[in-house]
């Protein structure tokens, strides 16, 4: 059984969610409710996005390298101490088609965890 998310991990998770979805006031207001299941669902969304989005693929590779590789649960380990890097990378995605369609297909899954 994993431990509850720390405040720092929740903030890091919000950064990743906003890279995928853009700024989302609805999710920003629910940061306190982020939990282990939210991390799992965001990890699934990232995995789906890597199938058509090269920038996400690069992001996931760098995050996974900082964590424990692409084994299940890698994102939880990568959340620790990654927010600074994310904030300073100014990651932007040009592949809007892939991001918008795949991200939407996982959105209600994320909301169901809150």
């Amino acid at each position, binding site marked *: 059984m994993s431990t509850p998310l720390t405040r720092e991990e929740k903030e890091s998770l919000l950064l990743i969610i906003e890279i995928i979805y853009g700024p989302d006031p*609805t999710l920003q207001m629910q940061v306190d409710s982020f939990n282990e299941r939210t991390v799992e669902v965001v990890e699934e969304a990232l995995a*789906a996005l890597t199938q*058509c989005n090269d920038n996400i693929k690069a992001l996931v590779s760098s995050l996974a390298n900082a964590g424990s590789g692409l084994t299940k649960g890698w994102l939880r380990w990568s959340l620790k101490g990654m927010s600074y890097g994310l904030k300073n990378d100014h990651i932007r995605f*040009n592949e*809007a088609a892939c991001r918008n369609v795949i991200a*939407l297909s996982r*959105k209600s899954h994320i909301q*169901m965890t809150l």
Partner: protein
Amino acid sequence: MKIFAGLFLLTFLNSLAFADSAKEFSLEEKPLSDTMMLSNGALTLHLPVAFMNGARVVASGYSVLIDKERHFSVETHTKASWNDPEIAMSDVPRMLVEQDFSSVADEGLRRELQGIHKVLIENTKPNEIDVIHHKNRAAYLVFSPQDSVVLVVDKDKPDAFTQISVYGLNRKEIEDHIIKGVMQ
């Protein structure tokens, strides 16, 4: 000193005026029954289903969370939201279900569409794919027991299509509630 006294008097009179116009009352502690909830993350508004009958809730993208096992999200994709690609947006659903990207000149976009096809269609196999036509609209349904998607196009809106990503609804629920709903 006189100025402070004057200010105090003014504030006091203001508060009296406010107390006179704003009435306080308590709500009955009776729980509402048969409600639907509208939420923006910070506040959830409970509204009686009968009161909402026929009402329109206007939003550019939204999710409907029915229960733990059933939920869906709706969003319309436009040329602008896809960074102005040189394709007819209303042809995207057909391209995806037929896996026909021959009309897409942009190599990067073609790769993206192939990726979308893989995630929405290949990865959800075994699935059932159907196209339902009604008046000016067509709904492309990719049904699988867990993750389904409905892509809706309108002949009058060539620069857009709408994606409804559905989780946990059975085929009858999707046909009776979602597809009939968008074809109205």
